[in-house]
């Protein structure tokens, strides 16, 4: 089964990303770009292969969305690195990606060919991919917030907060795409664009939570502490939306968003 080859692709990609992260620390920007991109290419080759072998986009199960997440984290890291040249960002994105790869190695979940009729739609891929990319960017913002709040000894600099802002703006933009693509798709599939299904309710919560951050940053640009704390809270809410509701008693049996079987 194709899934058995995951460890080979993942190992190759992780090695590339690790070297890329190392090169970034050593100020060898070009090496970092090339190596990280190569890793992304290898990882994406695997995603593409299982896409072809399974004859459907690998986006249905939690394991499959984790696969995309592991891919998008280094991609988001690479974009941030190319824009703001932060040495540590590739290390963080690689580390996070490794965590998700490990989860997939140790708990691969079921990956079969079946795709129920409700998911057979041109909206499926953009809806989930865009969301995963948003989660990756907001994950990066969370890591940065964590670092600034608890590990940075010196005073937080303005440009660091601007990175947070940028990550959140772009992350929120993609989250908006994901949410509204979902609404347009829901109309096609279920007859209504918004039905306050538990997944939709939590999507709204997450969306509003990041709006709180954005507006607070404009209102009190110099109060870093509370703004960063908001990022941490918002990311916890995002986790509820992503997988937490699978364990939430109130959502059991009432969500039409459960496909992981």
């Amino acid at each position: 089964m194709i899934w058995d080859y995951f460890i080979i692709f993942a190992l190759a990609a992780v090695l590339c990303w690790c070297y890329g992260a190392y090169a970034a620390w050593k100020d060898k920007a070009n090496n970092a770009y090339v190596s990280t991109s190569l890793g992304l290419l290898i990882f994406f080759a695997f995603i593409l292969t299982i896409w072809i072998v399974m004859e459907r986009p690998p986006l249905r199960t939690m394991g499959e969305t984790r696969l995309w997440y592991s891919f998008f984290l280094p991609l988001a890291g690479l974009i941030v690195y190319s824009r703001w040249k932060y040495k540590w960002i590739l290390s963080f994105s690689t580390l996070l990606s490794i965590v998700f790869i490990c989860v997939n190695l140790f708990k691969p979940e079921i990956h079969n060919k079946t795709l129920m009729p409700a998911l057979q739609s041109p909206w499926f891929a953009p809806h989930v991919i865009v969301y995963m990319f948003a989660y990756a960017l907001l994950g990066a913002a969370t890591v940065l917030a964590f670092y600034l709040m608890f590990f940075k000894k010196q005073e937080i600099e303005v440009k660091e907060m601007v990175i947070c802002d940028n990550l959140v703006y772009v992350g929120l933009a993609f989250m908006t795409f994901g949410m509204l693509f979902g609404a347009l798709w829901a109309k096609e599939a279920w007859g209504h664009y918004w039905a306050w299904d538990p997944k939709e309710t939590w999507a709204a919560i997450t969306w509003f939570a990041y709006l709180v951050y954005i507006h607070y940053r404009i209102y009190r640009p110099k109060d870093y502490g509370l703004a960063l704390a908001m990022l941490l809270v918002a990311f916890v809410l995002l986790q509820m939306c992503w997988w937490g509701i699978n364990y939430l008693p109130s959502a059991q049996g009432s969500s039409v968003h459960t496909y992981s079987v």
Partner: protein
Amino acid sequence: MWSKPWTLKEGFALGGGLIITGLVLQLSIGPVVWDAFVWPANGIVLACFLLLNILIYACRKLFYDFRFISTYQAAIPTLVYAVALTILMGIIRQTVNGSWLTNMLSFWPFVLIYVYMTIILGQIILRHLLHFQWRRDIPFLLNHLGLFIALTTATLGNADMQRLKMYTMTDTTEWRALNDNGEVVELPVAIELKEFIMETYDDGTPKRFASDIEIYTIEGEQMRTTVDVNKPAEVNGWTIYQYGYDSSMGAESNISILELVSDPWLPAVYTGIYMMLAGALTLFILGVRRKQA
């Protein structure tokens, strides 16, 4: 507190006052009756709501409270309340016949906070419209006006939305359908099920189910089409969805359940949604613009 200019504290206090007001309303007159908002009531309410927004804006010079509505100090607490109430909605199981926290959509504090948020949106939209600058306000309006339009029209238009279930049998023509209350509704379109199509994967799980149907309209038109999950058909303002089948019969089912949906407010809601999509695009392209300060 309450020394001007007001801060987040006053903002939170105002929102809290609104929640208490909502609780009193819930106790005294009961939950929000959304079904009452059928056309033309919703049209009138929308017109009044827009007028109210303009009035508040027009009187902003006279009352400090009205000016306050369009500030971050008002917007941020309201968003926080919206998050908190929506979290309650996400944690507590919602039921159609529920009350208070088990039916948030008709719970006054929830509704009032969302209405207040919409008024805040209305106020800042008016301010930006009256002091319009291209580069600043196009992204701003796409995001904020888009959300304003989507929120108002989706909420008020909901009562006009009809979702009906039609049980069709092979080779018979059906023009009656059931609404959510189980009442029979006669439709201006009739549907004849030619064939129910079902394909399964090797393990027996459904791969495709669809209905090959002939549609007749009251005007005498006739058309043949196939309705698949994710591929509804349109006729005379009705969208026809594949909803279900006789699951005890599986692929042999000669009953297909179709859902017929009519939502006259949909174009307005979609205008808002498309504006927000365009707004998100500007957010992505332009990123953060730091405040000149």
